């Protein structure tokens, strides 16, 4: 399954700086509490977890519930410790899984 994910973080940072990371992924986040035109409940289809790892070490993770709006947007912070790769993973219902990476240079 493909979904568009946007990640925004500074390309360069000074060692020890706290950087802001913004992430956005396209997903309906169907809550499972709505009824369709046929009067039946629309089954739940949400992203259940999102995590960020910095050079392989997990630094931030969240658990989403149906109360998260469609196209989940999350802003969080991280300490720029070393140059490397940040990996972002979204996992959801119906086998949804998206991983995207972003590079950072720390001076």
């Amino acid at each position, binding site marked *: 399954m493909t979904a568009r994910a946007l990640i925004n973080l500074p390309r360069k940072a000074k060692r020890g700086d*706290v*950087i802001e990371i913004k992430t956005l992924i396209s997903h309906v986040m169907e*809550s499972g*509490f*709505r*009824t*369709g*035109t046929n009067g039946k409940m*629309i089954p739940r289809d949400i992203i259940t977890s999102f995590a960020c790892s*910095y050079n392989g*070490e*997990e*630094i*931030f*993770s*969240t*658990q*989403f*519930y*149906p*109360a*998260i*709006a*469609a196209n*989940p*947007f*999350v*802003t*969080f*912070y*991280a*300490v720029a*410790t070393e140059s490397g790769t940040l990996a972002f993973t979204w996992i959801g219902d119906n086998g949804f899984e998206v991983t995207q990476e972003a590079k950072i240079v720390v001076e």
Partner: protein
Amino acid sequence: MDAMTRLHITRRQVLLAGGAALGASALPVPAAALGQMDTAIRSLFGEATIRPGKVTLDLPPLVENGNTVPMTVSVESPMTKDNYVKAIHVFNDKNPQPNVISLKLSPRAGRATIATRIRLAGTQKLTAIAEMSDGTLWSGTEEVVVTLAACLEDLP
């Protein structure tokens, strides 16, 4: 007289027993009266003391559309190895489910702040609870007025 007193006592005892039975069956009522938010909080943290403070929930006081409500949660913490925020949980009172978001943080997060967009099914109260590295719990609460509720609308 003696027999009457005895009879009276037994009758009272029967009544008391009945009352106790009634009371026992009515026990879950106060728990239900707590509201889904407090029930969810208690089921997660048990009887642990939750102190108000340190946690700031930032939401618009008046929301037109409950489908996307910007929310920022921040916790006062130096975020060092010895003193950091381990987890933050956000709960609501009126959505079909009491949980909004749960997150785990590490000292490498640098700042215990997160921003996201949430859904709100009507005017209600939100509570965020922060779990510190030393095990203490802190909470912050915010009231939000919603004019158009999320979740309840059907597809056209």
